[in-house]
C-alpha cells in the first residue's frame, strides 16, 4: 500500500522567487500538498543562475514536485485567471512587496474576499511594519543585521565572521511551512483562517542566542573566540594531512580528556601540570592546541575522527565537498538523491526546455515512520499550464487559446 501523504488534498499557490519562499513550497509538496508555482517566462528566478554553477543546478532542491504554471501577472487580463487560482487554493504564499502586488491589481483583503477560507503567508525582508518595511535586503547580507557576525571569528580581529550563505532564508524557509500546517490544523479544528507575516530579518534575529541575555544581564559583548570555548579545552580546529584539511576536537569531561590522551599514545606532555584540570587547560589552551596539532598533522582528518570517536571523544572532520559527496553516513541514510535538472533557455518558454542533466539533490531531512516525505523530479516552468488551467480552473479551450494568443499565460 502506498503510504499516505500528510497534506493530501491541500492546494498551495506559490508566487515568488529566490530561496525561502520556494523552499516553503518544496517542504509542503514533499508532504503531499499540491503546490502550484506561479511564474512568468519573462522574468526567470535568479536561483537558476547560481554563480559558479551550471545554470539550473540547485533548482530541483527548491522546486521538486511542484506544479509549475506561467502567467504574466503584470497584464490586467491576467486578473480573472488569478482570481480562479485564489479560489481553488487553500494556502497562498508570496514574498512580493505589497506595493508590487497592488500594482498587479490585488491585495490581501481582496484575496480574502475571493476566498474567505484561504490561509495567507506573506514573507517580507524585514517585516512590513517599521522603518525598514520597504528596505532592500539580500539573504547573505542580512546575517549582519542579526548580531551573529561580530561574535564570529578570532580575538584581535574585528572582521565580521561571515558565512558564505543566506542562512536566515533557510530559517524562514522552515518556520513558514511549520506555521502554515499549524494554521491548516487550526482551520480544520475551528474553521478559522489565518494571515501570517514572516520576515527573513526576524527569522535570523531569533537565532542570536543567549548572548543577547548575557549582554543585558552582565553587560558583556559576546567574546570572539573563534573555535575555542570559554569553559572547555581542547576545543578547536586542528590541521591535518592534505591541503586546507582540518579536524575538530572538543573535550568537556575528564573522561573525554583521558580518552584523547590515550588515543594520542599518552605523550609525556599530557601529564604536564598546565593541563591537569579543565580550568588549567582553558588557561593554557594555546600551548595545548599546538601540542595536539603536532599529533593531528601526521594524520588525515578522517583518521583523527575515527580514532577519537573510538576513544569516546567528540571529534570530526571539517567536511569539504568531497567528504560530503562521499560520506558513508549520508549515503547510508540516502540523503542525496539522483535527479534531473533543466538548463534555462531564455529564447524558449520554460515548458520547451530540452537541455539538462543528472545531478544530486538533498531529500527533506525529516524521517517520518508512517508518512515519508516524497522525493521526486522538478517540472519545467509552465509545464503544468494545461492541468491547472483546464482541469482545476475549468478554463475552456477557447478561452485558453485566447489567453495564449495574447501571451497572458506565459
Amino acid at each position: 500500500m502506498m503510504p499516505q501523504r500528510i497534506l493530501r488534498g491541500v492546494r498551495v499557490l506559490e508566487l515568488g522567487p529566490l530561496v525561502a519562499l520556494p523552499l516553503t513550497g518544496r517542504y509542503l509538496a514533499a508532504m503531499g500538498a499540491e503546490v502550484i508555482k506561479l511564474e512568468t517566462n519573462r522574468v526567470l528566478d535568479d536561483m537558476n543562475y547560481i554563480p559558479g554553477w551550471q545554470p539550473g543546478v540547485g533548482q530541483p532542491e527548491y522546486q521538486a514536485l511542484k506544479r509549475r504554471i506561467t502567467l504574466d501577472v503584470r497584464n490586467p487580463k491576467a486578473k480573472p485567471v488569478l482570481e480562479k487560482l485564489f479560489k481553488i487554493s487553500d494556502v497562498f504564499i508570496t514574498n512580493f512587496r505589497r506595493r508590487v502586488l497592488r500594482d498587479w491589481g490585488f491585495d490581501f483583503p481582496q484575496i480574502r474576499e475571493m476566498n474567505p477560507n484561504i490561509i495567507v503567508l506573506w514573507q517580507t525582508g524585514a517585516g512590513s511594519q517599521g522603518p525598514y518595511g520597504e528596505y532592500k535586503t539580500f539573504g547573505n547580507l542580512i546575517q549582519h543585521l542579526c548580531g551573529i557576525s561580530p561574535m564570529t571569528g578570532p580575538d584581535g580581529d574585528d572582521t565580521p565572521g561571515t558565512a558564505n550563505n543566506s542562512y536566515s532564508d533557510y530559517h524562514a524557509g522552515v518556520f513558514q511551512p511549520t506555521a502554515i500546517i499549524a494554521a491548516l490544523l487550526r482551520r480544520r479544528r475551528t474553521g478559522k483562517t489565518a494571515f501570517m507575516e514572516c520576515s527573513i530579518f526576524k527569522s535570523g534575529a531569533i537565532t542570536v542566542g543567549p548572548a543577547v541575555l548575557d549582554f543585558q544581564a552582565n553587560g558583556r559583548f559576546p567574546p570572539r573566540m573563534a573555535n575555542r570555548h570559554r569553559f572547555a579545552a581542547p576545543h578547536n580546529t586542528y590541521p591535518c594531512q592534505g591541503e586546507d584539511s582540518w579536524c575538530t576536537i572538543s573535550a568537556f569531561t575528564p573522561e573525554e580528556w583521558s580518552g584523547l590522551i590515550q588515543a594520542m599514545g599518552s605523550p609525556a606532555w599530557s601529564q604536564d601540570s598546565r593541563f591537569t584540570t579543565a580550568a588549567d587547560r582553558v588557561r593554557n589552551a594555546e600551548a595545548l592546541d599546538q601540542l595536539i596539532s603536532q599529533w593531528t598533522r601526521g594524520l588525515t582528518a578522517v583518521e583523527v575522527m575515527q580514532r577519537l570517536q573510538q576513544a569516546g571523544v567528540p571529534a570530526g572532520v571539517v567536511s569539504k565537498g568531497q567528504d560530503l559527496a562521499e560520506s558513508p553516513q549520508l549515503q547510508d541514510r540516502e540523503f542525496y538523491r539522483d535527479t534531473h535538472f533543466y538548463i534555462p533557455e531564455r529564447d524558449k518558454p520554460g515548458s520547451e526546455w530540452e537541455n539538462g542533466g543528472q545531478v544530486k539533490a538533498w531529500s527533506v531531512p525529516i524521517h517520518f515512520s508512517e508518512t515519508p516525505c516524497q522525493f521526486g523530479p522538478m517540472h519545467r516552468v509552465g509545464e503544468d499550464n494545461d492541468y491547472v488551467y483546464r482541469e482545476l480552473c475549468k478554463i475552456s479551450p477557447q478561452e485558453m487559446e485566447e489567453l495564449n494568443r495574447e501571451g497572458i499565460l506565459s
Partner: protein
Amino acid sequence: MATDRQESWRSITPGAWFIGGTSQPPAPPPPGAPATPTQQTPGTPQPVQAVSTNPTPLATDEDQLLSGFRVLDLTRELGVFCTKLLADLGAEVIRIEPPTGDPLRQRGPFFKDVPHPEHSLYFMYYNTGKRSITLDLEQPEGQALFKKLVARADVVVEGFAPGYMDRIGLGYEQLRSINPGIVMAAVSPFGQTGPYKDYKASDLVLMGMSGWMQITGEPEWPPTRQGNEQSHFPGAQYAALGIVAALYNRELASGEGQYIEVSAMEALLTYYTENHPAVAWLLSQTNVGRPGVRSRMTVPMGVFPCQDGWIALGVVSAGEWESLAQWMVEATGDDAILDDKYKGGTHARQAYYDEIIAYVIGFLAGLTRQELFTEGQKRNLAVLPVATVEDMLNDPHLAVGDFWIELDHPVVGKLKYPRGAFDTDIIHPPRKAAPLVGEDNEAIYCHELGLSATELGALRNEGLI
C-alpha cells in the same frame, strides 16, 4: 571560577552534573526538600522554592495555533529550540528535568556570572513559555509516572543518544502502546541510523561535519564556527515542522501518531544549498571555500569598514550599480567610476574587481554606518550595518513590531527576549520566562495525576522527582 559546561549530546545519563572539571553527582536532596539542584558556590543565591502557584495549565488560548496540544520535552541542545518553537505556537510544553536538574542549566552564560541552576541564561533563552517538572526516567517508578504523562500528552520530543529511550523501556513502540496518538520525535547529531549514529558531537563538531565551517570566516582563518551555536537551530526547526505535520496527519488519519527523527548534520547541510559543496564537487571536483567578507558573487558584494564600524553592501542589477556609482561620485567628487568600462552587468565588472573594491572602500570610509544605511536605502540599495547584540536591542525597526518582549523571572528579573519570526495576531509572543526547576511538580503530579501531598513527598525522598 569556570564551570565545565556539558555541551555535547552524548549525555545518556540524565542529570550527570559536571562542575569544575569533575564529574560528581550532587548529594540527594534532604527528605522533604524541594527538588532543586544543590550545587552551590559561596556567594550564590539560595535555591528558589520551586512551588507552582498555578495549578492549571499555562495557556489554552483558543486563538493560538497549537492551543490544546501538550508536549513532553526531553530535549538537549539540539532539540531545545524545537520545543521552544512549539511553545511559541501555543502548545503546552512540559520540560522534564532529572531530579538533579537539567543539564542545560549548567551551561553558561550565567546571570552575574555566578553559576547556578536558576542563573543559566542559556537555559532561559531556550525555555521561555515552558513548564517544568522533575522526574528520574531511569527508575521503574519514574518510568511508570512518565507513561501516565504520555497517556495525557500529544507529543514527546527527545534528544538522548540513539537507542537510549528504548533501553530504558520508553521507546516509541512502548509509548505507542500506551497512547496510539502519540507523536514522538528525536533529534540527534547524525541520525538514529547509519555508521556515525553513535558518534559524539558538540556544536563545534557538527558545524565542522556539516561543512558549514568550511564556508565561514576569512580565507586566511581556519574554518570557523559561528558564535551563536548555529547547530542548535536547523535540526530543531525541522523537528518542529515534522511534529506539526504529524499532528495534522493524526487529525486526518483516525488519531494515529508516528515517530519522527531528524539528524542535525543533515539539517545543517540543507541551510547552504546555494553553495552546495557536494554538488560543486561532483560537477567540477572543486571544494567550496571561505570568501569571507569579500564575496565575488557580484561586484561589489561584501562587508567593508566605514567611518565607525562595518557595513554590508551588495549590488546585483545594473540599475543598482548605476545608483551606487552616482552616489559615490556625489560623495567623493571623483567620477573615475563612471568610466564606460565599469558599466553593464556584474559579470563585466568582475574583470575590474580590485579597482572597484578600492574605490568603494574609499567611499565608505568617509561615511558612518547610519548615514550609509539611511541614504543607501533611499537610493534603493541593499546597504546594511553590521549589528551587535546591543544594536539589535536598540534597533528602531524591531521596536515597532515589539520584537523584544520583556519577561520577568523570579531570580534574574526582567530581561528582553525575542518575540519570534512572525508578525501575526495568531502567534503570540512568549508570555512567561523559563520555569524554575520542578516549578510545576505539584500542579502536574497532584492536581492532574491525583497524587497526594504525602505521596509527592515520598517520591521526593526516593529521589524520583
